[in-house]
């Protein structure tokens, strides 16, 4: 079994200071028969327990969006862009006819194919459009989702704990994770916002 970290090493979300603890003790009327150091240790240990309980109980299937906008590898890029614009989303999973996730296509994938130099964000595109007379979307006209998508996609299972979801997003620097069932078929998607919302509601 993995050894638990010592209480002193736990990181609270906001590092709680001794002054915070002292101030909290002052807020409570009546004499508290405990030193600020003990109280802090207790707080951090209780926080760790709460976090473990909440993060192991909240899973991908509990927080994912089930109505997923999706495209197919042969969907024309114009239609992909239209779907993303209509749904006001920055990326969609690309699935094959059996529902298997074969890739993800996002704003970044579009931007990466739209200029002579590499463009990383919307303002980069604006800058290039203004400097170089006209915009470069024409270069990818006629192409399909399969041409631009990032593949293979990083996907997660339905029972992945929320903490792991957050770690994957951070490590892979991605903003959305398609959720697949045991057969690899798309069942939902999780965005950074979904994680933030559920953390806010539950932790």
């Amino acid at each position, binding site marked *: 079994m993995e050894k638990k970290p010592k209480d002193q090493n736990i990181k609270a979300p906001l590092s709680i200071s001794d002054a915070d603890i002292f101030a909290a003790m002052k807020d409570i*009327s009546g*004499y508290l*028969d405990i030193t600020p150091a003990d109280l802090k240790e207790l707080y951090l240990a209780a926080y760790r327990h709460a976090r473990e309980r909440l993060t192991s109980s909240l899973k991908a299937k509990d927080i994912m969006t089930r109505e997923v906008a999706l495209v197919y590898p042969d969907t024309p890029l114009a239609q992909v862009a239209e779907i993303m614009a209509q749904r006001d989303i920055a990326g969609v999973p690309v699935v094959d006819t059996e529902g298997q996730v074969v890739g993800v296509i996002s704003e970044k994938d579009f931007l990466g194919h739209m200029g002579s130099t590499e463009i990383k964000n919307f303002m980069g595109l604006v800058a290039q459009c203004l400097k170089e007379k006209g915009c470069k979307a024409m270069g990818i006209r006629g192409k399909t989702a399969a041409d631009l998508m990032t593949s293979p996609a990083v996907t997660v299972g339905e029972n992945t704990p929320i903490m792991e979801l957050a770690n994957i997003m951070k490590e892979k620097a991605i903003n959305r994770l398609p959720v697949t069932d045991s057969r690899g078929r798309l069942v939902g998607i999780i965005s950074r916002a979904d994680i933030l919302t559920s953390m806010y509601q539950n932790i």
Partner: protein
Amino acid sequence: MSFWQKLSGSTQSPPRVSLSEIVWSWLGSFLGIAAVAYINYKIFAGTDLVMLVGSFGASALLIYGANKSPFAQPRNLLGGHLLSAIIGVGTYQILPQHPWLAAPLAVATSIAAMHVTRTLHPPGGATALIAVMGDAKIHALGFFYVVMPVGVGAAIMLLIALVVNNIPKNRSYPQYWF
């Protein structure tokens, strides 16, 4: 942490309580000790009976001045005093000729017994010690010392704590009974 680091301490002392807290602590302690002292000096005057023992002063601090502490809860107040009184009297009766040994035995054993029974109440240590070193009047009580002054006295102080500590809006007592 090295020995010297440990010696230097690791935190600050808790904050001072509010003025109202101090006033209620004073009032509770005054009334609690007044009750047992009055019985001891006025009603029991001229008898062999006792109602006041030194350890009640320490109990007063806890139940009126730090009433949220686990030490101050009814289980601890009554359990700690009663257990320690039994151990104190027993130790004295086994070793009446060796008070230097009976004293530490009584105190250490009562602390251990309070730990085991989760009735830690610091004044209990004094209650045990008083049973050993007490004056002739205390010694003459024998095991009745457990009933009175210790049991009855602690109960009277508890009753007053139950009333006084529940009058102010931001105080309540007990945190738990047993």
